């Protein structure tokens, strides 16, 4: 469903990706691992259509993504992808419920419908009690589960998670991963996780290891 072929991406003189290829199937859970600076996040950004590689190809459902214009890639991300970041990256002024409803509102759903869907998603992730609180009033684990709810609320085909437990202690991290992987499996959503934590990588069906922007092997 999601395929990268010989991706190359540089930042100034630094080669972030150098001929990386990957294939990810429907409903699969894949971890991209490697040390700092190995190009994990850059690969995730290329797969998600956030950045364009300088060479190589990215395909989603047989459609080439890397040649699409910015507006088309943005539309693709909004309709088919969800993204979870390390520190949640929620809007601090909105309540948890409003943060989760935001992607639906941007998709032109009604206010009431969006807030109901957000509430339901928060209930599934066991953070409904935080619905009326703002991000600053939440614990790290709660904040990250709200971020997961926001990524899942539109029913995306693929969820990209960039170090989703990087800012959490091990217990809270485990809880977030249980919820994220459990929900993805239940919904049949493809999950691509970037991590340098072996415990997080263990949740995946398959691991793509990178080193210095090059493939270091695929661990099944």
């Amino acid at each position: 469903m999601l395929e990268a072929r010989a991706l190359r991406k540089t930042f100034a003189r630094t080669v972030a990706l150098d001929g990386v290829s990957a294939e990810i199937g429907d409903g699969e859970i894949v971890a991209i691992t490697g040390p700092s600076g190995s190009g994990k996040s850059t690969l995730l950004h290329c797969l998600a259509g956030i950045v364009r590689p300088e060479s190589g190809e990215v395909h989603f459902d047989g459609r080439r993504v890397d040649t699409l214009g910015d507006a088309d890639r943005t539309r693709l991300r909004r309709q088919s992808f969800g993204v979870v970041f390390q520190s949640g990256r929620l809007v601090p002024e909105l309540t948890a419920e409003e943060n989760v409803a935001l992607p639906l509102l941007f998709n032109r759903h009604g206010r009431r419908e969006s807030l109901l869907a957000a509430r339901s998603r928060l209930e599934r992730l066991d953070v409904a009690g935080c619905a009326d609180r703002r991000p600053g009033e939440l614990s790290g684990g709660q904040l990250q589960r709200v971020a997961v709810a926001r990524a899942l609320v539109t029913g995306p085909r693929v969820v990209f998670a960039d170090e989703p437990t990087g800012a959490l202690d091990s217990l809270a991290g485990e809880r977030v991963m249980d919820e994220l992987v459990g929900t993805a499996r239940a919904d049949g959503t493809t999950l691509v996780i970037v991590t340098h934590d072996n415990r997080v990588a263990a949740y995946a069906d398959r691991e793509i290891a990178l080193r210095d922007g090059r493939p270091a092997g695929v661990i099944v």
Partner: protein
Amino acid sequence: MRMLARGGSRRERVRGRLMTAGAALATFLLCVAANLLAFGLGVSVHPEGFLVQTRIEYLGFFSGRDARLLTALALALLVVPTMAFVHQVSRLATATRERRLAALRLAGATPREVRLLGAYESGWRTLLGGVCGVALYLVVNLAVAGALRGAVPLVPAAQLVAILAAVTLAGTLSGLMAGRHVVTSPLGVVRRTPPAGPRALDLVLVTVGAGLLVAGFVDRGDFLRVPYVAVLSMVVGMVLLLFGLVLGAAWLIRVAARWAGDRTGTAETLLAARMVGADPRGWARALSVVGLTVFFGAGVGAQQGPILLRGYLDSSWAVAYLLVDLALLVALVTSAAALVAHQAEDLLDHRHSFAALAASGVPGPALGRVLTRQALIAALPVCVVSAIAGVGVAVSSIWDVYREVPGAFAVAAGGAVLMAGIGVLAATLVARAARPILRRTLRPEGLRDE
């Protein structure tokens, strides 16, 4: 200075030129003001031997000493919003050079040293602008003196140097102060002032001011019995109302933001309303000049109405109106710069969440609309209330004239609607100027954790 300028982008060069242009205008205005004070004092003698005063008749309205004094004062006052504009550009420079300033901190520069660099830059820019302003003044002075056969004297060199020094000093201090709005750390730049809600105290001035104004208006028939009490009450009421409106704007903005946020069905308005509602005092500060401009504009419009309808417009009124309009224009430009600076600082705080939204598929133009709606939500109540207050003050102070001139109320109401519209339009158009800053915020680099 060289460290800051190294690798400077086109935008930074534009900002530098704006600073120079602002300083040039301020210097020019001060020189002209000094020039107006310099003649008619019996100190100048024409090279041919006759007194300058004999030539002053060529100056029409400016032949009168009082008219020249008042005009000089008005021009000198115009320097305040002009230098405020320079200050806002300095603020913008600090808010949009996050990486470079953070790199300087990483390299070992203390926060004070980073601020000193900003002061050095704006000092140098204002000195350059000041020299341009003096040069412009000399050219204009020579041209006018030639046209009026020597009736216009030249400002003494010592005064020109003093003006240049004052503008440069103000620019340097402004650069020093501009850096105080944010904290520059090795990890980036964040706003110093946390978002804050309105204070109950802010409403006291509005209430007392409006009360005194109404009391003075009701009591105006008794001028003969208790001389000037009603006038005094109205003047004090007007001043308090003016300050009260500036301080109380935070309440208006918060109420409007809550109202909009609780009812909207669009993501852009929800985001805008909640962001404005979280920092109403910041928005009130940024919009204070817009509010004052609308207040004075609507008030002056209401005062002009009966004069225009009666056909009383002579050269003295025309010059006064021209100066007022010029002041309003400069104030609007200043307020525009203040709003852009405020939104740039606001985006510093939201760069990660906005970059995350963009990565999740929210289009850049939609986030651009958030900026416009923020300005709309905050500016609309401020401008409407300021326009009503401005007209109210003007009409109540010349109530008897208004009763005698048919159509004056309609002109005043039209002026209020126009000024409120101009204020809101200016604020929303200015929000578009912050879009390039937003586009930089949305780059994927903003997704990386610090």
